[in-house]
């Protein structure tokens, strides 16, 4: 199925989906309730039966975007399926009944972003050590090490090491303004 045919079929099966095609990749944005239907359409109708990866993007005000990359080996067609979920209720049905390889990807997305995949057989942390608190890849998770360590580049040229912190200091890249709280 070519990209054009995929767009046409998607319009028929998933009327709520917004699709865009560019250079061998079709991106399909679906609402949360159509998530499993979209994945089933991709695998069974569009022929994208190779599961590549599943991850999330913290879009801050808009919510958390969960993205899946599927591929059709026969037609050489890439497909990105994306949905947006609110951060205060980050639940999504699991893709494991359709793609068993999504199991570990969903475990990682769960521990890094806090997305809860309903129906997942074992949503235990994959990469983070036991007792780790927080979801590191969310945008509001600051890199504590950068804020705690003195940045060697904070001093101006010619400024003495012992000068008082009277002027506004340069903030190192990666540390939000005003962090750590005084």
């Amino acid at each position, binding site marked *: 199925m070519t990209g054009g045919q995929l767009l046409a079929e998607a319009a028929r099966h998933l009327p709520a989906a917004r699709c865009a095609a560019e250079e061998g990749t079709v991106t399909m944005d679906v609402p949360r309730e159509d998530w499993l239907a979209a994945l089933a359409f991709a695998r069974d109708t569009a022929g994208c039966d190779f599961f590549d990866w599943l991850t999330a993007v913290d879009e801050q005000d808009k919510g958390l975007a969960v993205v899946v990359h599927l591929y059709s080996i026969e037609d050489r067609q890439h497909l990105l399926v994306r949905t947006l979920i609110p951060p205060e209720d980050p639940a999504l049905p699991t893709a494991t009944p359709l793609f068993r390889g999504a199991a570990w990807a969903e475990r990682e997305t769960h521990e890094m972003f806090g997305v809860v995949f309903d129906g997942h057989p074992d949503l235990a942390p994959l990469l983070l*050590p036991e007792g*780790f608190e927080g979801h590191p890849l969310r945008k509001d*998770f600051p890199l*504590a*090490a*950068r804020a705690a*360590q003195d940045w060697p580049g904070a001093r101006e040229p010619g400024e003495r090491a012992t000068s008082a912190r009277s002027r506004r200091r340069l903030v190192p890249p*990666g540390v939000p303004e005003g962090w750590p709280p005084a």
Partner: protein
Amino acid sequence: MVAVDLPLPGRQGETEVAAVPVWVRVFDAGLACCAVEVSAALRRCASQLPGDAAVNVLVVAGTVTDKLAPLVLAAYRDLPGPRRVLSFGACSNSGGPYWDSYCVTKGADQLIPVDVYVPGCPPRPEALVHGLRLLLSAAGDRP
């Protein structure tokens, strides 16, 4: 982990020792990219020891993540004496480029006593030989 036996040319220094090869048994804890450089160095070494090894060396090569830290500790604990630790590469020296990560241990010396630090990202395979030589010249200072 791979145990390889590494013959080194005889030590040279102020007090010239007879050119007797010093045998070292190397245990490579290859955790990340530095493992490739250590493998490149150890490829050219013998795999059979003709005599007793002078010392067992645990080479920690690669990033030590918080999740893997207990295993590095266990590897050191299980290593029979006389034993030394060589930290290979920036990540196991101090956390390296990932020092600011949320899940990286800032250096293997946070867990186990390190005898020699080899800098590099990654160090050349020849740098491992430099590090092992320094280790042997300093090994007489400690039991």
